[in-house]
């Protein structure tokens, strides 16, 4: 029976106890398949029509949060003086650093130019003896790339513009522009306080020692779960 085709259908049909056997015909199967396929597409198309957007697309099209939503929240940064960083797309704040620096203003000691303050006795340097510049190779960087030799209370850019110690990020961004962009946006750096506005960020130099910016290896804060179980 398996090898019956087209022309034999009629003769087979006469003695056939199953009158709908013609469904076996190649043409009928083709038609049924197509009907099923089309209706399947229709069903799928209708069901997914309402919600074909990805989660991120939905977020972007969602109603933006009203500023009033945050009004009942207590401020999470309270106390330090905040300085706005407002020449950017999303303005935010940094914490004033000059008030926290122990020996500021520097002119308390540096009352004459650096060349006059070089120690001549055998004891060597009287201050800043712990400083070793390990930031960039010697030909690229020395103290006066960032420090303003003429006025040690301030810093200077490569072009000689005076920069306040509170805005030291201006110096870092001269080379580290990618990190600066990320810091402005929120992908780099450490936030102070909570998630709700206003946004307050740490300065670059609060995490990276400008003289030795590389982070050292260290031990984790605590052993892992499995280690703890071992004690029992």
């Amino acid at each position: 029976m398996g090898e019956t085709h087209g022309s034999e259908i009629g003769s087979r049909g006469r003695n056939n106890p199953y009158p709908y056997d013609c469904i076996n015909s190649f043409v009928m199967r083709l038609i049924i398949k197509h009907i099923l396929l089309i209706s399947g597409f229709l069903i799928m198309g209708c069901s997914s029509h309402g919600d074909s957007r990805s989660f991120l697309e939905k977020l972007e099209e969602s109603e933006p949060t009203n500023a009033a939503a945050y009004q009942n929240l207590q401020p999470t940064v309270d106390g330090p003086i905040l300085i706005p960083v407002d020449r950017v797309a999303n303005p935010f704040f940094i914490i004033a650093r000059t008030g926290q620096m122990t020996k500021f203003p520097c002119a308390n000691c540096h009352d004459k130019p650096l060349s006059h303050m070089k120690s001549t006795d055998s004891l060597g340097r009287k201050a800043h003896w712990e400083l070793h510049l390990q930031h960039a190779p010697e030909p690229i960087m020395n103290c006066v790339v960032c420090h303003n030799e003429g006025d040690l209370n301030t810093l200077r850019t490569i072009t000689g513009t005076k920069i306040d110690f509170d805005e030291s990020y201006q110096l870092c961004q001269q080379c580290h522009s990618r990190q600066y962009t990320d810091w402005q946006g929120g992908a780099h750096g450490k936030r102070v306080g909570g998630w709700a506005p206003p946004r307050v960020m740490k300065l670059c130099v609060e995490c990276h020692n400008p003289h030795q910016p590389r982070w050292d290896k260290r031990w984790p804060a605590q052993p892992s779960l499995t280690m703890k179980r071992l004690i029992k």
Partner: protein
Amino acid sequence: MSNCNCNHSDNSCKNGMHELLAENVLSDWLKRDDEMNYLRAMPSLDSVLMWSEYNNQPNISSLAKKETAADHIMNKGMDRRSAVQTMAAGLMAGLGFLQTACNPLAPAEDREKSQLEWDDYFQGNFRVMTDKEKEETVSRLERMYELNTGQRINISATGPIPGVLYGYAFNISKCRGYLECIRGCINENNQDRETGMQYITIHEHKKGQMNFGEAPDNFYHEVPQDGHFYIGTQCMHCESPPCVDVCPVQATWKEQDGIVVVDYNWCIGCRYCEAACPYDARRFNWQDPVVPENEVNHNQHYLGNRLRKKGVMEKCTFCIQRTRDGKNPACVEACPTGARIFGNLLDPNSEIRWVLANKKVFRLKEDLGTEPKFWYFMD
């Protein structure tokens, strides 16, 4: 050792072992290499323990917890007759308990305690409570804690902030495996110190591959290791959470602000959610959690870090007690590298939205369609 009451026949209970264990000061014995090797050689302790094994562990006097009355009954094998007897005794005790609550002659404190325990027993599902009922529930829990320990705590029932949907981003180029997040989480969320409960896992991956099966999460060495990077996992607070779907008693649900929470009083401890979670985010309390009184975080939330009990599930709640007050979760605050970013997904000016718009982000097991609100990205 006189206080050894385990019945191991192998050599895991040798005196040396017990003296070593009894010190109970991790930093001290970690320095002693020979003993570390001895511990590592023990087969039964090498892997994560099953519950049955867990019960048979050597009981150290300093760590041993008093067996509660419920433990005593539940752990005892018994025949039908004694079961009926115990149940009858329980019924009598229940009547007595009711009597204490109503007896004008009993001390006032006992009466109050009985009344509170009675109310506790018949508490409804938090999700369907009115604001007034929520208020009564948390003040009852506060009062019960005060009667039991003499310490005052603050349990809040603060609801979600309208227009806020929480999201999280994790920078895998920044994480250095310091595990400060884990410590911050444990301290904030009153997790059981004895079993080493933790919500966050940090996986140490070899650079050039990302295979969680081969990434150890039990490392303890100087970090970051050369040639490795670190990925943290925790509850992803999915938009379509499979753990919520499987809960037979609706003790877990997704709040308006996207946080997936558990009502610890309503949970029956069936652990379906633990099995359903694709991210290994749910934890079960195999015993009554032990938190030293001086380490208890007294700022609590009903759905967050209030003290759990034996036999219920718990999980990361994005530190609901902090985030609903505008603070960052403890892990975000503890991370010294700034690898963790948290914020409001519905606020176009938030850090998290900037990351989603400007970084190449990905999520874990995205193909499952659970829509986790936890993204990973690189610098």
